[in-house]
């Protein structure tokens, strides 16, 4: 009993609880449909690759999880959000495909047709995203522009730029060497591996350097951090740059999935999912303390909702409503007044017990 109480007090308890709750809904439905109760959770090998709903959630949730990493840092240090990440994904994908295929070409499928090697396209795509991150960071850190206003510029401009670069066309790179980043590496979907590497690298950096502490202290109080000797502006610039880097990686993954730069649609509204992931993870959008694991769980929770709605065959016209209801519930459960209410109630219960 005491163990359970200690568990519920952990910061990550509620985000994990919400995610499990979303997935458990499937168990109920599977039982109602007369299927195996754990159909949703079954993972098997099919055609030499992993196959199952859980694999889908991890696979499809990769982009948002990667974006949520950068978004968490940005939210923490600047108490604002980077709403340009979706467009920057599109820019990274567009630059990547155009470098590989050459300007004005709409499709390449053999090594001989390539204008530049694939690695160069990917490097340039991610490079463009990093530049976008630096641009955002510069505006926020040095020009002291509100983060949402500063990133609003690239929110509209980056996608437009991507469309221009691609000459308003969908540029296809039908090469297995390029498709691999969005399909399978051995039996495992590559996006899962890429997300795992991103998470691991950032987690290690935060664990073994003081970066995390710096970011949080800048987020809690920028001025006092500066007086304490941190270069606040530089730290904010760095966070936005890292956010740009991750947006670039997510963009390449998304582009590789469809082996083409569909710049109109890559990363569309994904910035909202990334921000939501940070919030669902129990992080305050007011900046300061952050919990990276929470954001990652939040990202996969969003995908779990989408996958559940698809699996249950909820009509597409109604799906957004269901999604909204679930998200409201998750957010309300984690709201401070609700938490305080449950705390008071359990305290009252304990007091009543003692009185008896």
């Amino acid at each position: 009993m005491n163990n359970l109480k200690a568990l519920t007090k952990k910061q990550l308890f509620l985000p994990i609880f919400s995610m499990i709750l979303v997935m458990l809904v499937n168990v109920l439905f599977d039982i109602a449909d007369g299927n195996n109760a754990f159909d949703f959770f079954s993972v098997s090998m099919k055609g030499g690759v992993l196959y199952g709903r859980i694999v889908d959630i991890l696979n499809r949730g990769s982009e948002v999880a990667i974006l949520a990493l950068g978004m968490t840092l940005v939210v923490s240090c600047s108490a604002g959000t980077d709403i340009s990440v979706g467009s920057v994904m599109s820019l990274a994908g567009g630059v990547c495909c155009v470098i590989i295929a050459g300007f004005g070409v709409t499709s390449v499928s053999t090594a001989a047709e390539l204008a530049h090697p694939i690695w160069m396209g990917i490097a340039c795509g991610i490079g463009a995203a990093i530049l976008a991150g630096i641009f955002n960071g510069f505006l926020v850190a040095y020009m002291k522009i509100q983060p949402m206003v500063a990133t609003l510029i690239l929110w509209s401009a980056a996608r437009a730029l991507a469309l221009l670069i691609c000459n308003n066309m969908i540029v296809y790179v039908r090469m297995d060497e390029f498709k691999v980043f969005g399909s399978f590496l051995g039996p495992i979907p590559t996006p899962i591996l890429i997300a795992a590497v991103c998470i691991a690298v950032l987690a290690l950096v935060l664990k073994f350097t003081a970066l995390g502490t710096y970011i949080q202290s800048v987020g809690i109080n920028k001025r006092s951090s500066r007086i304490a000797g941190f270069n606040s502006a530089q730290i904010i610039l760095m966070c936005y740059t890292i956010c740009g880097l991750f947006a670039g990686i997510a963009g390449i993954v998304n582009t590789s999935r469809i082996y083409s730069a569909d710049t109109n649609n890559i990363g569309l509204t994904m910035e909202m999912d990334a921000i939501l992931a940070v919030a669902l993870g129990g992080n305050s959008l007011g900046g300061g303390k952050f919990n990276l694991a929470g954001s990652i769980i939040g990202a996969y929770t969003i995908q779990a909702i989408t996958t559940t709605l698809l699996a249950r065959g909820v009509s597409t016209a109604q799906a957004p409503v269901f999604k909204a209801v679930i998200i409201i519930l998750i957010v309300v459960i984690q709201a401070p007044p609700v938490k305080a209410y449950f705390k008071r109630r359990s305290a009252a219960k304990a007091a009543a017990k003692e009185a008896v």
Partner: protein
Amino acid sequence: MKKILSVLLALTMVLALAACGGSSAPAATQAPAAPAATEAAAPAATEAAAPAEDSKIVVGFAQVGHESDWRTANTKNYQDVFSAENGYDLVFVDCDNDNAVQIEAVRTSIQQGVDYIILAPIQSAGWESVLQEAKDAGIPVIVADRQVDADPSMYDAFLGTDTSVEGKLAGDWLAEYLNGAEANILVIEGSVGSSAAIGRTNGFNAVAAEHPEWTILDSQSGDFTQTGGQEVMESFIKSYNGKFNVVVCQNDNEAYGAMDAMDAAGITYGVDGDVIIISYDATHDGLKYTLEGKINCNVECNPIQAAYVEKIIQQMEAGEEFATYTLVEDQAFVAPGIESAYATTMTQEVLDGRAY
């Protein structure tokens, strides 16, 4: 460090600006005779129209823009049919998806006193006053491609495609192909609420209702994108594994995504496979897959419409009766090896002969 950074930032901004500046150029070259609704350009167009010989019929054409390959093919078709050799003087305006520009373009045509106005409306609403002006000036207006929300007495003729006819065509072909066999159908719809998605769904469902041996297992939106088609198909495969034999994708991009998802799960499709794929749009790439036998049937939305308009104009000139409501015939293309009364069998010649 800071200096290098600022130089880099300045460079990116300059590049971005340069790229933005470049954007207007292609639009201008695509519409050489376009008055573009700016005062500066309007006199130029008037001059172009004025020296037209009396024997030539002056036709003003307010086109939507150049947003897709389909539209480009549509424009080229008009320019070919209404050429000087055929006795026409076409005053062509590329409205670049801007409603205000289009209204201005039609007004300019009225002022120039063209003989006929062809209008491919960007928006359906808000045309009453302009149509009244044309009526007062005695210039016949032919509405092409999309509908306007105005009383049919306000314009002289309508001509366009009906997406529900495309849906019906796909259904009729499937009925012929299956020849009474059972069908378990999965539908990947287009964007919720778009006219193409609604029309194609209604048309297909009308045919399905006549066939008790057909079951539509599920219908979800893939947002007209490849990623959307892929994600929805992945989920369908898990929900209806081995239970479906027909997949209907409401555009070609969704079909590519669905094929990738089936490839990953080891499901065979197309002429030699277990699953029949029906797609819409009949883009060049889509027809290539049809030729390879991967897409069984591809229904097109016909952009070749100018000949119908020319016929109406000729009949008006001669004072004959003309059709006030014309539906342009849509075609379907089927993979080699399939013979159909409803569709053309794909060959390399058919693919090479396509305008887009």
